[in-house]
């Protein structure tokens, strides 16, 4: 009898343990942007911590947000951009970060923290992973052949119909995101790129409609390969992606030379933020993962691989000269002043943006 009750107690104890602080399964589910990490980092992390990384990728904030708002996404770490992060925080998607578990917090860069606190006051919910700009990538040879004095340092290259028409035959690609292209178009015509006034936003439509016939494709990731293969000669895209295209072309030795510019008129600056969903099943592992990424050497390894600037001041000493020394990745302080950021749109204004964008894409 005694034995039986002891056994029962043991079982009850196990059950109780299961309900209480059961050690997490050694897994972390990460959902990040495509082409955005050195896979070696994930392997190293697993070797060091024994936590397996299930790594999944997306190429648009919209897809991520839809999954998050549907609930039970199953992810432990997600990487939305700033404007999306702000809205998702309001929707109650995320849990606050436990700073006591993020021992590498001191490595972060105050320039970035200041800016990201616009979306996440006090930086309570998220840590910057990478940041970059939305500018223009172009095939130097093809552009020079078609227009000797092409305005490559200006948005005229894509937004001026007379100029854009010259490159229609060799392929102009454009990001398929209303909240990057519409602010860029507004900035081009001298309006406030962060305007929330539908009457102002609608002015962007005329700019985009005028160049629409010359655009080959609106897509948010295909332009990397297209630029690298020579299938596109001009692409509006994200800094690091275009620099990856530049390097892929150089490796392939296919005679394609790609360059990236943040046009003189100013460009959007964006921040991709690591955050933990409120319903994450492995929050401890998620904190371990984020803290690992926040190590100076690890963050530098990631930046050296993907050619994006990061929000980690301490990592800068480990960056290769062609990353830290490239103003396309780490803009000079003067250039930094011309970069603008965008705050979240309300549902109604978002609808105006999407409708304009649909009209631009489909012509209807």
């Amino acid at each position, binding site marked *: 009898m005694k034995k039986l009750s002891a056994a029962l107690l043991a079982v009850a104890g196990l059950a109780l343990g299961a309900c209480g602080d059961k050690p997490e399964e050694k897994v972390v589910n990460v959902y990040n942007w495509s082409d955005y990490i050195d896979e070696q980092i994930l392997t190293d992390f697993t070797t060091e911590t024994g936590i397996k990384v299930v790594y999944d990728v997306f190429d648009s904030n919209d897809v991520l947000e*839809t999954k998050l708002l549907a609930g039970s996404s199953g992810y432990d770490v997600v990487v939305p951009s700033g404007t999306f992060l702000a809205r998702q925080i309001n929707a109650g998607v995320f849990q606050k970060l436990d700073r006591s578990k993020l021992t590498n917090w001191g490595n972060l860069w105050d320039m970035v923290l200041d800016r990201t606190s616009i979306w996440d006051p006090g930086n309570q919910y998220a840590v910057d992973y990478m940041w970059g700009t939305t500018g223009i990538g172009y095939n130097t040879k093809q552009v020079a052949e078609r227009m000797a004095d092409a305005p490559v340092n200006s948005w005229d290259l894509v937004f001026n119909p007379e100029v854009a028409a010259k490159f229609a035959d060799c392929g102009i690609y454009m990001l398929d995101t209303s909240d990057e292209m519409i602010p860029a178009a507004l900035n081009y015509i001298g309006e406030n790129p962060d305007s929330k006034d539908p009457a102002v936003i609608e002015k962007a439509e005329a700019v985009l409609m005028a160049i629409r016939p010359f655009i080959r*494709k609106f897509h948010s990731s295909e332009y990397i390969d297209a630029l690298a293969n020579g299938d596109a000669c001009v692409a509006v895209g994200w800094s690091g992606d275009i620099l990856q295209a530049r390097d892929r072309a150089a490796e392939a030795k296919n005679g394609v030379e790609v360059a990236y510019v943040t046009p003189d008129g100013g460009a959007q600056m964006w921040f991709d933020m690591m955050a933990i969903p409120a319903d994450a099943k492995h929050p401890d592992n998620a904190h371990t993962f984020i803290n690992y990424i926040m190590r100076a050497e690890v963050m530098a390894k990631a930046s050296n691989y993907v050619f994006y600037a990061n929000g980690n001041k301490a990592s800068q000493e480990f960056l290769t000269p062609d990353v830290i020394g490239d103003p396309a990745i780490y803009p000079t302080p003067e250039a930094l002043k011309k970069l603008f950021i965008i705050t979240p749109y309300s549902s109604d204004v978002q*609808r105006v943006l999407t409708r304009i964008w649909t009209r631009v894409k489909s012509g209807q």
Partner: protein
Amino acid sequence: MGAERLCRVDELSGVAMTSPDPMKKKHKGLPLVSGGLVSMICECPPYRWAASRCYRWGLQGRSLTVMVPYLWLVLLFLAPFLIVVKISFSEIRIAIPPYAPLFEMIDGLYVQLNLHMANYQRLFHDDLYMHAYLSSLRIAVVSTVLTLLVGYPIAYGMARAPKSWRLPLLMLVILPFWTSFLIRVYAWIGILKTEGFLNMFLLWTGVIDEPLVILHTNIAVYIGIVYSYLPFMILPLYSSLEKMDHSLLEAAADLGCPPHKAFWKVTFPLSRPGIIAGCFLVFIPAVGEFVIPDLLGGSSTLMIGKTLWSEFFNNRDWPLASAAAVILLLLLVVPIVWFQRFQSNRSQLGE
């Protein structure tokens, strides 16, 4: 001597069409899959209790068997559809989930029903959606006709092939399914693009001097749909053509009917069930197709599947996306039900 007069085979095909279908043999009782297991289950008390209850409510083996497809429909069609209808009447908000509840408790006493009609109003207000519906229907009709034109000769050839060839040929039609649909559509990008295989080949043969721009146009979408859905057209066509009694054609020939006329008077009408089934199998998924227009179509290819995607993902407007889906379903189901009615009325009249 007019061929018209001699070609009296309408009756022939009429006879064949109303002849009893050998497949319609009545099954009596349940097939005994494993008698021992069945009798074991039948003897255990919970089963007997349930069986007696069911019997009292008029539920017997046969009605239960009939219920299975209904249960399937309710569970996998009606229930999801009702959820979509429910969401289509709610209001968008930024939260998890991103729409407001339809029913709200007020003071724990009243249940308030919030029917939000604006989603449907918006669908009719903004001509984008109507354009998308019409363009989807147009693309689906054109590609269904093209699929029929391509699929019919293939199915015909297969049905006329020597018996020993038929199974391998059937396998060849099904073979592409072994590769992911997405990859097969992706492969077409490599074939159709400006520097793709097709253009390379045509340039090499000297048929064209300038590469054709096919990718990112509606033509690429048609090619993609015809290619992807061809097996769905061939299989029902083949099964109806293969069943056809060949002696009917011999009789037609004996009556002096030339082969091409015999085809239109005998073979074609007899394959009509296959044509209808094949066309439905191609047309219905083609209307809502998303992957093919997204990968192969251009930015001006407007289809309701893409419009739905952008409502859902870009605007995060689940209610409006649901309303668009409900209208799409009505647009498809109503004509199909009407057609079925029409068909069954006709066959009843025929009898």
